[in-house]
């Protein structure tokens, strides 16, 4: 995917998260959203693009979230579930029991 598009999407998420008063919550919320909703190849392309190109117009929070983005390899043979980052509890606890 085009790096500009991925960065644009991340910036949009960031703008929502930035309205939170708790900065840690905003950062974790941004990373959790990307980890929860972006396919691994998108996350890989995103991290590669942003970390290698300082000119990409990524927001500050987006850059700071990079280390929290989970990376996995396509050829991983169905690894066990990664641990959920904080702030990404299941949407509906009632559906879980």
């Amino acid at each position, binding site marked *: 995917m085009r790096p500009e598009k991925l960065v644009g999407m991340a910036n949009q998420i960031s703008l929502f998260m930035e309205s939170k008063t708790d900065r840690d919550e905003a950062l974790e919320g941004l990373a959790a959203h990307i980890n929860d909703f972006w*396919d691994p190849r998108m996350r890989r392309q995103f991290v590669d693009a942003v970390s290698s190109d300082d000119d990409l117009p990524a927001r500050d929070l987006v850059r700071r979230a990079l280390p929290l983005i989970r990376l996995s390899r396509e050829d991983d043979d169905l690894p066990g*579930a990664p641990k959920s980052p904080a702030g990404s509890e299941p949407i*509906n606890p009632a559906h879980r029991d």
Partner: protein
Amino acid sequence: MTIPLSRTIDRGTKRGTSETMVTLTVDGTEVTVPAGTSIMRAASEAEIAVPKLCATDMLDAFGSCRLCLVEIEGRNGTPSSCTTPVADGMVVHTQTDRLKKLRKGVMELYISDHPLDCLTCAANGDCELQDMAGAVGLRDVRYDSVAEKGTHFQIRNTAGENNPFYLPKDQSNPYFDYDPSKCIVCSRCVRACEEVQGTFALTIAGRGWDSRVSAGTSLDDMLSSDCVSCGACVQACPTATLVEKSVVEIGTPERSVVTTCAYCGVGCSFEAQMRGDELVRMVPYKDGKANRGHSCVKGRFAYGYAEHPDRILSPMIRDRIDEPWREVSWEEALGFAAKRLKGIQAEKGRRSIGVITSSRCTNEETYLVQKLARGVFLNNNTDTCARVCHSPTGYGLGQTYGTSAGTQDFDSVEHADVVLVIGANPTDGHPVFASRLKKRLRQGAKLIVVDPRRIDLVKTPHVEAAHHLPLRPGTNVAVVTAMAHVIVAEGLQDQAFIDERCDAEAFADYLEFVSDPRHAPEAMEEVTGVPAETLRQAARLYATGGRAAIYYGLGVTEHSQGSTTVIGIANLAMLTGNVGIEGAGVNPLRGQNNVQGSCDMGSFPHELPGYRHVKHDDAREIFESRWGVKIDPEPGLRIPNMFDAALDGSFGGLYCQGEDIVQSDPDTSHVVAALSAMDCVIVHDLFLNETSNYAHVFLPGSSFLEKDGTFTNAERRINRVRRVMAPRARYADWEVTQLLAAAMGTEWGYTHPSEIMDEIAATTPSFAGVTYGLLEEKGSVQWPCNEVHPEGTPMMHVEGFVRGKGRFIRTDYVATEERSGPRYPLLLTTGRILSQYNVGAQTRRTANTIWHDEDRLEINPHDAENRGVRDGDWVRIASRAGETTLRAQITDRVAAGVVYTTFHHPDTQANVVTTDNSDWATNCPEYKVTAVQVAPSNGPSDWQERYSDHAEAARRIDYAAE
């Protein structure tokens, strides 16, 4: 459940709603009914059918036919039983010598002005007049003088002169005829149009002998009048005066199967009335809990697509998309598809293929398609058309309340005092709900409309919005947040509710946020274009007007801040305590028949059935142990991501069931480029749709009449879909998916959709109690249906929110990047129209095109004049994504600076213009805001011509030799 036609009893009037019960005696039988019930209804409940003509339990009592007379001991006269309420201890006689004589006299008068062509009449065998003539024992008609004066049914009078009272048949409506000569002026049609549909298109013109049913003015016929062809009048008519053309052509049906409409998210129940395996007509089912016996033109009449000659009945394949199609056997097509899909996976990896489930197919079919991705492809690349409509609803309501669904049932609107409609156009998009809403508004409920366009609801006969907030497209969040600001600033919030039900910390944070003066309507006016005072009044009304319900549609979700608006709406309802009570709540109006169901069934790439994220071991384990596979814990690609990945070369195969992504998804040229880059596109559909132009395999689909299953409507109601005829292309859709899985090497072994539902119930907590047996018994249930709620859940969050405490979340307004500027000074927004549905694949193949045969561009007179555009002119509409042409319609429904069109016709290609902007949380496309320029034009754009040439070439079929 198959019910004989006679089982749909018409009890004449509605049952009283009082809690006080009254006992009376009817013909010696004691019967107890609620106070306020009519004698006619009470008699009917005691299995005594009082003769009647003008009464029907869909309508209020009228008392005009004088046939339902009864005698009451201790009272004088012979009152009509339909208009006389019961009283305690009342003793009623329905059959006395005096009554028999009176009734026979009344019937004789009716019949003296009625043609006696019963044997060749379309209503023969299904005529209440005929039944009543029999019931009262009419044997003779003595009034020759009627014929001398001029009846209503003879072209000439007895002297051979033209009869001025005779009116010819009105056959202008494509689906039903109006034959005035058979009319008994019972007013049932007029009352149905008023009370049930709320359109007021029909009236009784003239007085006495001149009284005639009239559509519109005397210059109108049915088609040119305001009639919306909902069919309520036809259903109400006791004679052949208003009759379906299909009954005229085929004859009366002999059996009736209850099923569910396959159009919008209201999910109306219908009786498919059959003769043999021929569908004679669809009649709304009175016991259907979503529609309560009402329908719209689509569900009632526009089912002809199921028999349309365009339907493809043989599987087809081709190596490349520039080749003609080749008809092949099912085995060959499925083998070809499986081989290609496996080849792509071998070359590009496990995550290089995916599926799109259909929000038009059944829950069972959708479940199987996502199971194909998760259990056979071994990835989570499954998405559904809900991505492009209501995915923000799932996210927003999930975050705030804990469930991805509306809170109420449709009956709830009957208790609403204030209704806030945001970004929805119910009279066009969800007509049956609109009729129920309008009924409540006529009873006095107040309406607030938030919409850039002056939709019909803003002002329509006997309904007028208290406030219309004509906001600038793309500023929903600003408006909703400003409303919350007013509520908080003026201290109108329901603090007791908030303290008891909501997360205190989150509320404190939200309070601080929303109190900020930058959210005041005065501060936002510049952005939203909504006068601050209007917004304040609307907010006050919503907060203080009593039970307040929010209904919203795609005008909320299809924005770059769609999810934020949904959160804002959820905040508003919590702030005012409008959750968990009748008449209130947050109600998304779903676009397609099974959008709710397709989301419930785990169609999204990040969650398993029942909204459980794929990252959770315990959720995956349930399916892993049942399916015997390892499920990928990583989220898959969403539809727009699939396109991007296809252009990257990392995604090469797609199984697309029942969705036309080329026509319905935004930025068509991007979609087309992506599909063209794939190695195997499998389209499973009724027709060669636009997407199939880029497909390698075509698998014929089955219509909703050809399969068993369930749909889940916008109120979480699981309704049965029942097979009334064999699949025309041999297999129901669920069977095709099962065969594809088998061709890929996995045998599932389902023999009936009920077994799929059993698996859904066994794996998905909110469906735990659902079985076909229960649906048979109850008619329908609303999930959650489990041990705690064995009969389902009409209203959510009653005692507390599903997630525990309701969570307020900040909703900062972020302007969309799609802004008008010098190059593209207008904002385009899109929507739909009553007679057409979505991409029009179904409705364009019916007579509905008589109402809407092309998409038009609505433009304000001011903008039109600036550009030298006249009404009906061809105009070019261009955005940064592309351009297309269509004809202009000048109207002040849209404000200056805003243009509007529908997207029902592929020739228009409205989505060539829309961009790839999308919702921040869900990637739901921003269909509702595109900066455009409009200019006069000579005809189709280059794109349209190229596209049309390509489409024609791509649809070539080399028919197999016989």
